[in-house]
């Protein structure tokens, strides 16, 4: 592989000329200069913090210590304790995130397809819809979630109409339900699903669909046999970009949920940090969340992954 060979005396000789070596060194140095500052930021404020979090998750609380006082230790029981209490919330988080991801895919794919493929010849309309897809990012996500809360409120128009039509029982609610939380998650992460698929479908060669049609495939067959497989990398990126933040989110659960059956793991971590002041417990839960997502994502990548991602 490298530019070296073993000489007769068994020494390694470099076959490259001085100019070649100089050019290569210069190139390597430039590369290092470019990468090091950002890498330092990532090391100091991502890699090291994760390690700190890991060590914090093993801290112990000495007898009679005041609130928020912990000592470094190897207290693996922390994990057993928090998992024992909060495993349902962890499972629920993944469940909600999964449903929201599937819903976002079902809603988002047609959106991306419409804008990227159907409207390809209509530059202006395509532009407008694309703007509408991106612009919600700029009107605060919490403000929008709060708006949903008010739209779906018991005394609101939607709930009242549904009750009038007897779709919703008279004493039923739309907010403070798992339904509201999942709807909120789907809503908030929808653009993360649509944009990668849009970017991918934007490169779709529509002549392939003509070819497929020419070879006796109906529109449905063409879609499932040609379009969908070709857009797999976009779908793949979209599902990851939706699932990961959704699983760790707690704003939707906090604003649209209740205290009984909508608690997500993010809420628990937040409250163990700030309300209960149980740093080791919160750290342990964070770590479990991170690891389970990494494991799930790795399995997902192994099973469906494409090299084109990232």
């Amino acid at each position, binding site marked *: *592989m490298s530019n070296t060979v073993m000489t007769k005396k068994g020494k390694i000789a470099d*076959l*490259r*000329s001085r100019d*070649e070596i100089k*050019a290569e060194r210069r190139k390597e140095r430039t590369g290092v200069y470019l990468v090091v500052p950002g890498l330092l930021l990532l090391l100091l404020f991502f890699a090291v913090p994760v390690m700190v979090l890991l060590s914090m998750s093993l801290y112990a609380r000495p007898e009679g210590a005041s609130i928020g006082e912990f000592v470094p230790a190897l207290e693996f029981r922390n994990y057993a304790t928090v998992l024992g209490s909060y495993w349902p919330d962890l499972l629920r988080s993944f469940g909600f995130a999964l449903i929201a991801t599937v819903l976002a895919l079902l809603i988002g794919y047609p959106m991306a397809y419409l804008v990227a493929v159907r409207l390809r010849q209509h530059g202006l309309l395509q532009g407008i819809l694309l703007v509408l897809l991106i612009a919600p990012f700029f009107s605060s996500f919490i403000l929008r979630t709060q708006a949903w809360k008010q739209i779906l409120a018991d005394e609101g128009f939607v709930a009242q109409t549904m009750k009038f039509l007897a779709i919703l029982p008279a004493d039923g609610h739309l907010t403070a339900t798992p339904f509201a939380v999942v709807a909120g998650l789907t809503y908030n992460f929808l653009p993360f699903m649509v944009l990668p698929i849009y970017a991918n479908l934007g490169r779709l060669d529509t002549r392939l669909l003509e070819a497929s049609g020419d070879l006796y495939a109906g529109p449905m067959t063409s879609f499932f046999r040609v379009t969908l497989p070709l857009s797999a990398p976009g779908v793949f990126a979209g599902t990851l970009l939706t699932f990961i933040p959704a699983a760790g989110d707690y704003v939707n659960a906090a604003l649209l949920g209740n205290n009984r059956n909508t608690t997500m793991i993010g809420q628990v971590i937040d409250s163990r940090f700030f309300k209960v002041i149980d740093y080791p417990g919160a750290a342990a839960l964070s770590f479990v969340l991170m690891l389970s997502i990494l494991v799930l994502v790795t399995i997902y990548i192994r099973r469906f992954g494409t090299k084109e991602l990232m």
Partner: protein
Amino acid sequence: MNTNTAEPSIKQVDLPRSDGADLNLKGVTKRFAEFIAVKDLDLMVPSGTFFALLGPSGCGKSTTLRMIAGLEAPSEGQISIGGKDVTALPSHQREVNTVFQSYALFPHMTVLENVAFGLKRKKDKQAMEKARAGLEMVELAHLANRRPEQLSGGQQQRVALARALVNRPQVLLLDEPLGALDMKLRRQMQMELKSIQTEVGLTFIHVTHDQEEAMTMADVVAVMNEGRIEQMGAPRDLYELPKTAFVANFLGKSNLMRGTVTGERDGLLEVAASGHKIVVAVDRAVQHEGEIVVGVRPEKLHLNREAPAEATGYNELSGEVIDVSFTGTTTEYLIEVAGIGRIGTFAQNRGQQSAEVGETVYLSWDSAHSFGLAGDELVDAGVDKT
């Protein structure tokens, strides 16, 4: 706006003549991690020459070009231009310009900005005027404010040429510059390139895998194979007297026959090939004894339906026609000669009755058209296998 149909031809412009400079490569070798691209290459290109480096893909011709341009550092050896050693000089300090294979026009600049780019980097005060003159030379002055993407392939090619030429380099490198053009445009551009070169008098190094292109345009052709130059010379000399099987097959077609030298008489070598006697001029053979390979170009063969009268200095073979194909101006024949194999030839379609498949025919050719190659040559080296 019609873009593709009528490419305007290049007109005479008052660009000053310059003589270019000699280019000299001494013992140049380039090793990459996995293979050796160029092996101990010696090359001397006199100034003002249109020089073609011809070879199949992967033969090292592009790497050679990149080393001359300074885009790649040689592992060993020395490159000098106009007598000055430039081996260690980075690309931007060399008086060499390249017309890239895919043109590599800057997409964010107009055509004029593209052409003026090199002059501006050299802080030429007349950059814009010279760029305009350059565009005029390639008849694209009217498209100066367009973006490269708005031009046809042929137009982009001209812009790339103008962009390199306006800098008046000592050596101009052309890396398969016509590869992306269709056949008709290609032939036209070949003529124009040749006339520009004559006009400006620069040293041109043209890399191509198209043997016809190389022969039409170049003063000197070097055939490259596996990192080495197999043979170098004027196109006609290379064609008429190839020194290796690779050159014989890559540059046009050849019929190659293996045999053993049995004797020498009147300046002719007598060769026994599976029971047939073939003669080849001594001074047209690279080897004079033992096993050798004798070759002859298909168009040198005469095809007769009856056995011709014996003549000294002529070679004669007979065989059975196994394939006839009509190509318009000529008809091509494939003849199976017992012990030797298949021999190809063709005849101009002058209304004579053609031989038919299965018929026995007689082939003859002047021994002055035979050439002798070394006996260890592979008969199918350099044959286009596609």
